[in-house]
């Protein structure tokens, strides 16, 4: 780089650092919560990193994290204002309380404040893990979310894990036996499973294995058999990963370094695992984000079918009951989770394969 340009850049960096220091000091005095102060400092550090980092990967990481934070903020914004656009308020029922009680309640839940201030208060509460109170059950939404998410996370985690493992194995088998019977069978079933909606898979499994064959009990909180929900949730992502692995494996096996490895006498098994599968894994990493999204939304349907009492069930119940704070809280929670998983998979992808340039 030109010396003059470098000098100019350093000057820019110094001025922006000074400005950032001023903003941080000012923000730390104004903002009451420690958490918010930390958030402010992080965001500023990320912006500086995105603008001035000399390292390409570092710049990308800063940008990507900023985009993720912005996305979460926009999701919260959309969710909050969309829910407030719904006609009808908390006191529009027939049994409206007296004016004095209303005033006290409005004071307590900040309903007398302007909408943007309510939004800021909601954001602040959200950061402290406070999503408000369900209008239907009267429980704290955060408590409901975290307790039911444990069940969902168990099912979703097993589903994701088995989808990745089975998908990689089946995809490699299909790629190594290209055009043979095994390949055809695998491709037939994966094409089929991609086309079948998860709720149909779930109901068919329920019908066949629970009701007709009686191998599994119908799910209840006492009997925690999660085999069927996991299978129902895993089939579609597994099929996708299988197809992805197959194409990337075929691509990798045609590369020169595989021929080199074979030529220098590396054992075939070693060639496939160390040189083939390791490189074929890279495209699969990008699918982790979409898979999380699929599993989280798919779990809404599948958990309702199997009635597992997880977060999906609670969300669908919230929709049926038109329990708006519950819908709002769950949406923001799930969306943040999805954005985070996409972020992680993108970052891992960039670190594993720095050849890719996202800009």
């Amino acid at each position, binding site marked *: 780089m030109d010396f003059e340009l470098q000098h100019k850049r350093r000057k820019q960096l110094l001025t922006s650092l000074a400005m950032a220091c001023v903003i941080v000091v000012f923000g730390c005095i104004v903002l009451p919560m420690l958490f918010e102060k930390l958030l402010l400092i992080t965001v500023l550090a990320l912006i500086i990193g995105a603008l001035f980092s000399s390292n390409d990967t570092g710049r990308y990481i800063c940008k990507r994290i900023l985009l*993720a934070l912005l996305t979460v903020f926009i999701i919260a914004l959309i969710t909050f204002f969309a829910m407030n656009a719904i006609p009808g308020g908390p006191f529009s029922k027939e049994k409206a309380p007296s004016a004095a009680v209303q005033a006290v309640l409005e004071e307590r839940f900040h309903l007398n404040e302007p909408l943007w201030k309510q939004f800021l208060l909601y954001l602040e509460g959200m950061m402290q893990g406070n999503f408000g109170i369900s209008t239907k059950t009267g429980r704290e939404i955060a408590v409901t979310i975290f307790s039911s998410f444990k069940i969902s996370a168990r099912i979703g985690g097993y589903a994701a894990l088995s989808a990745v493992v089975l998908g990689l194995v089946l995809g490699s088998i299909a790629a190594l036996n290209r055009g043979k019977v095994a390949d055809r069978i695998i491709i037939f079933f994966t094409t089929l499973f991609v086309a079948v909606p998860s709720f149909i898979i779930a*109901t068919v499994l329920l*019908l066949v294995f629970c009701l007709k064959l009686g191998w599994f009990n119908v799910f209840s909180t006492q009997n925690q058999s999660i085999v069927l929900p996991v299978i129902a949730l895993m089939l579609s992502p597994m099929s996708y990963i299988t197809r992805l692995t197959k194409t990337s494996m075929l691509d990798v096996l045609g590369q020169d370094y595989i021929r080199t490895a074979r030529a220098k006498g590396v054992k075939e098994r070693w060639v496939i695992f160390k040189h083939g599968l390791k490189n074929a894994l890279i495209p699969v990493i990008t699918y982790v984000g979409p898979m999380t999204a699929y599993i989280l939304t798919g779990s809404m349907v599948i958990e309702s079918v199997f009635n597992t009492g997880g977060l999906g069930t609670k969300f669908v119940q919230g929709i049926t009951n038109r329990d708006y704070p519950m*819908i709002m809280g769950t949406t923001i929670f799930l*969306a943040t989770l999805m954005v985070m998983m996409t972020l992680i998979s993108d970052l891992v992808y960039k670190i594993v394969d720095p050849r890719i340039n996202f800009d």
Partner: protein
Amino acid sequence: MTQYNPDIAPKKNPLSLQINVEKFEKATEEEKAQNDIVRESHTFFRDGMRKLFRNPLAVASMIVLFVIIVTIIVAPLIVPYTYNGMVTINGKRDRSAKNMSPFQYSQMEQQLIDEGGTVFPHIFGTDELCRDYFIRVVYGARVSLIVGFFASLIVLIIGLLYGSIAGYAGGKTDLVMMRIVDIIYSLPDTLMVILLSVVLDQVLGQSLNGTVFSTIGPNMLSMFAVFGLLYWVGMARLVRGQILSIKNNEYVLAAKALGAKPRRIIRKHILPNCMSVIIISTALQIPSAIFTESFLSFIGLGVQAPMPSLGSLANAARQALDVYPYKMIFPAVGICLIVLSFNLLGDGLRDAFDPRLRK
């Protein structure tokens, strides 16, 4: 102009650069035949169609789709039942025609047949409100297909306009437009669809009464709105990428150098080259829209109550899954067939029309 004759051509002078004609010999018939046109030349479109019709899976899926489309158009004209009315016999409501299995007749109908009358058979049986199930499934398939087509049409129009503007304009305009796309793209789509459906359902619900749209129902409208708001980003990215890459191709440069006007370049070079990719991704958008519709219907955010869709039929069948499993099977098979056919047709189209996959 006189023809060139080697016999009367001037003799070659030593040291001249003139070609020595005597060293040439006449072409044989075989060599002349090499210049003949053996086959008539195919246009890109005809070549693609030929490839498409050679693909057995694509042909099979086209046949399946054709049969389904003919059925949903013709069946309501032939079958004397309606999707929202009870089975009637001579104007009297037949209360005994409840939850019948396929091709079964109720007591009253049996009586009529015994007396010599004719009753149109209930091909898929009847549901718990004494409605003919076949016609409900047919209407459900109709709704699902219409949603699929219109949603992809909306996506196509918005995405095409936005993407081509960004692609042509380039520079700062492109940068700003694509940052907006990036942000919308990173929102978790299914969650946002659910959220917006919940909200628009309530917001539109009251204002729609009495207008033309009330027959379609607020849920359907909100679903289209959601597709128009969120799903176009993928298409916009695709179109922009296509236009950018084609714009920088050598043949466009050559055309420019030869003095072609921008209109000719767009019509002759850019549009035909990105059309195939756009058509393929539109074809693949249809099954994903049908998927989303059935998913929303399944969690109770789909079409308005008497109007069936395949997803809502499957959801309704869940309640008596043990006793009447066929009620689940018909709509489920319907969704799977439609989605599978569109997927396979889209794959076939891609193989036939995507020039990059040409071998």
